[in-house]
């Protein structure tokens, strides 16, 4: 059986008037999964999420149930559940609409996940610029508390959970989970050395699980529908529905929740094709940190394996689409400036490397590049990739290496005129 082209699960309530209110949520099966979950044991819930094959929606795709099972079974120290709502990866724009449209689904997921991991305090770390979602979450927490879904002795189960909505202050790196924990502790958001992993020593050095918004919001549906239901969507190793955020030069950009494994060709059909019929040139499958794809990749199944086999990554399924009018070196320069700005400065390859990469690209785009610059770029990328302290460094080189791989001619064209000048200068 194949699923429909669009499978609204997380997005199914979004069309309802005032979908963010508790009354709407309860009318549409809201908090029924929590009742069911609280009747089971934490071990059963961890097993359920493992069986479902749910993989992290924050970018790396780590199996959620496996991550949960790393939490120690004892409660020698408090356990924490931290929701990563720092959404800042360029192109990514799914968690913010989700929190605005259906904050209770995230809260219900938090309570179930916290129960499964024996945590009694959950934090939702929302990027500061996302003010309206912060408001909606706060209002939803109030409603949930008043209705007994949060607080002490939830629904008479004896389980207690406090939930704190915490606003960040503008730093992309705080999306990296250990930087997020430092930030949540009131420090500069800089990544920590791993191991120890958060499950061993996370927030306040206590066992902690960090999960993305979309990951946790998926949990109530898995509890209600079961693992087999979830696996009817998507592919064997990447099951489930996923919100694809389509932006850029298409007729109808927006949020499309489709089974994992959907291709760009299929997504383009859903969103009305390329804007004004101008052909596709390049696109990101999952944000700017995932290597670029081109029109050659229209039929790559967009799931964790498919994107990786084709030389990129699924990332956050932030599909940014650029048509033929956009210069690749320019786009790469813009992204590189972003990474330069957001590098936290903790490690040398990334801090210095992104600085030089941006300088070189700016010079090239300005028309003063030479062919050698391309080699220098690749050389600097080589010194950053795999040598940086966290994945921001690796992400920073993705647009450059993939941009040069597929569009070297465009970089060369920028240097053409300077070549002649140089020859003249030597003579």
């Amino acid at each position, binding site marked *: 059986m194949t699923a429909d082209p669009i499978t609204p699960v997380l997005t199914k309530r979004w069309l309802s008037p005032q979908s963010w209110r508790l009354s709407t949520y309860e009318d549409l099966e809201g908090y029924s999964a929590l009742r069911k979950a609280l009747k089971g044991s934490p071990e059963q819930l961890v097993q359920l999420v493992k069986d479902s094959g749910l993989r992290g929606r924050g970018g790396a795709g780590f199996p959620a149930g496996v991550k949960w099972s790393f939490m120690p079974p004892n409660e020698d120290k408090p356990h924490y559940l931290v929701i990563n709502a720092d959404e800042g990866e360029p192109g990514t724009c799914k968690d913010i609409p989700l929190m605005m449209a259906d904050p209770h689904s995230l809260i219900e997921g938090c309570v179930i996940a916290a129960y499964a991991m024996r945590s009694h305090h959950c934090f939702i770390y929302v990027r500061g610029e996302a003010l309206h979602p912060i408001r909606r979450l706060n209002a939803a927490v109030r409603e949930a508390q008043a209705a007994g879904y949060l607080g002490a002795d939830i629904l008479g189960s004896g389980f207690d959970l406090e939930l704190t909505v915490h606003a960040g202050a503008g730093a992309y790196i705080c999306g990296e989970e250990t930087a997020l924990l430092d930030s949540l502790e009131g420090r500069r958001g800089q990544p920590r050395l791993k191991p120890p992993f958060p499950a061993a020593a996370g927030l306040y050095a206590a066992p902690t699980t960090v999960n993305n918004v979309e990951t946790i919001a998926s949990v109530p549906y898995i509890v209600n529908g*079961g693992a087999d239901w979830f696996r009817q969507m998507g592919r064997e190793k990447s099951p489930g529905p996923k919100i694809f955020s389509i932006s850029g030069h298409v007729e109808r950009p927006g949020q499309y929740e489709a089974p994992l494994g959907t291709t760009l060709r299929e997504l383009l059909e859903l969103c009305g094709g390329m804007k004004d019929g101008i052909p596709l040139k390049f696109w990101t499958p999952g944000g700017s940190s995932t290597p670029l794809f081109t029109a050659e990749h229209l039929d790559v199944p967009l799931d964790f394996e498919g994107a990786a086999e084709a030389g990129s990554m699924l990332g956050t399924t932030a599909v940014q689409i650029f048509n033929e009018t956009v210069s690749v070196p320019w786009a790469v320069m813009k992204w590189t400036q*972003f990474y330069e700005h957001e590098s936290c400065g903790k490690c040398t390859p990334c801090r210095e490397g992104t600085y030089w990469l941006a300088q070189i690209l700016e010079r090239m785009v300005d028309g003063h590049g030479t062919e050698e610059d391309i080699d220098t770029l690749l050389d600097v990328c080589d010194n950053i990739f795999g040598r940086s302290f966290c994945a921001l460094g690796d992400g920073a080189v993705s647009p450059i290496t993939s941009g040069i791989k597929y569009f070297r001619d465009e970089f060369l064209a920028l240097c053409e005129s300077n070549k002649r000048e140089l020859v003249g200068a030597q003579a």
Partner: protein
Amino acid sequence: MTTPSETPRPGAEPAKETFAAAGADVDVVGISPVREEGMLADEPLASPFDAATVAEAQALAARYPQSRSALLPMLHLVQSVQGYVSQEGIAFCGEQLGLSEAEVSAVATFYTMYKRKPCGEHLVSVCTNTLCAALGGDAIYKRLGEHLGEDGKPLGHEQTAGTPGEQGSITIEHAECLAACDLGPVLQVNYEYYDNQTPDSAVELVDALRRGEKPAPTRGAPLSDFKAVERQLAGFFPEDEEAYRIDVDGPSQAVETLRGAQLAADRGWTAPAMADDAPLPEVEAK
């Protein structure tokens, strides 16, 4: 122990003696060559934060298992009072949380949302990340800078048109991806979203702000001002239930956001049906 000596000369020449801090018996002010103009005053800065703010700061500290976690919200609180994070604001947070000013400063300067100069009544943030930029974000930012500049000099990043504290003053900044790419090019005023902008619509918007008007955002609460939203980011929402509800219920259901769900509804597409009562898996009890 070392003793004070002559002033070392610049250059590679090693000093013959090392220097020690003046002891308690030295009248530093007395021997200072810049006695009149250069000395720092000893009395502490008058605190611009009243008892209510102190109480709120303490409430924030109590929200967390460890009080230091309240630092980010507290810096937002400080901005809600002063419109930026001043030196007094840093000292205030330090005092409330038992941290040194250096510790607080290190944090405050790390995050872009903490402004180090007084912000205008409104903060206008234009997304100039790649996708928005390609759709016109760069052009919007450039136009706004030129439009709000004076004497042919465009207004730059984190600069203010008008006088901070006065109605209609606007600080502009270029921002990184604001997680609204499907609605690009976007900008935010006080972190409320204005979607699908053009250079013309953005100019119209800032002109209205300069006149003291508050055009409604595409998504978000009715527009207030920078200080008021900083209060919400600190975690304090309107006490008045009705005002609170109006904020919360501000629009969010953009056409773009709903496109997938709408298309599915139109075509009759759904996720597979759920079984009536899917059991939780059996596991051995531990």
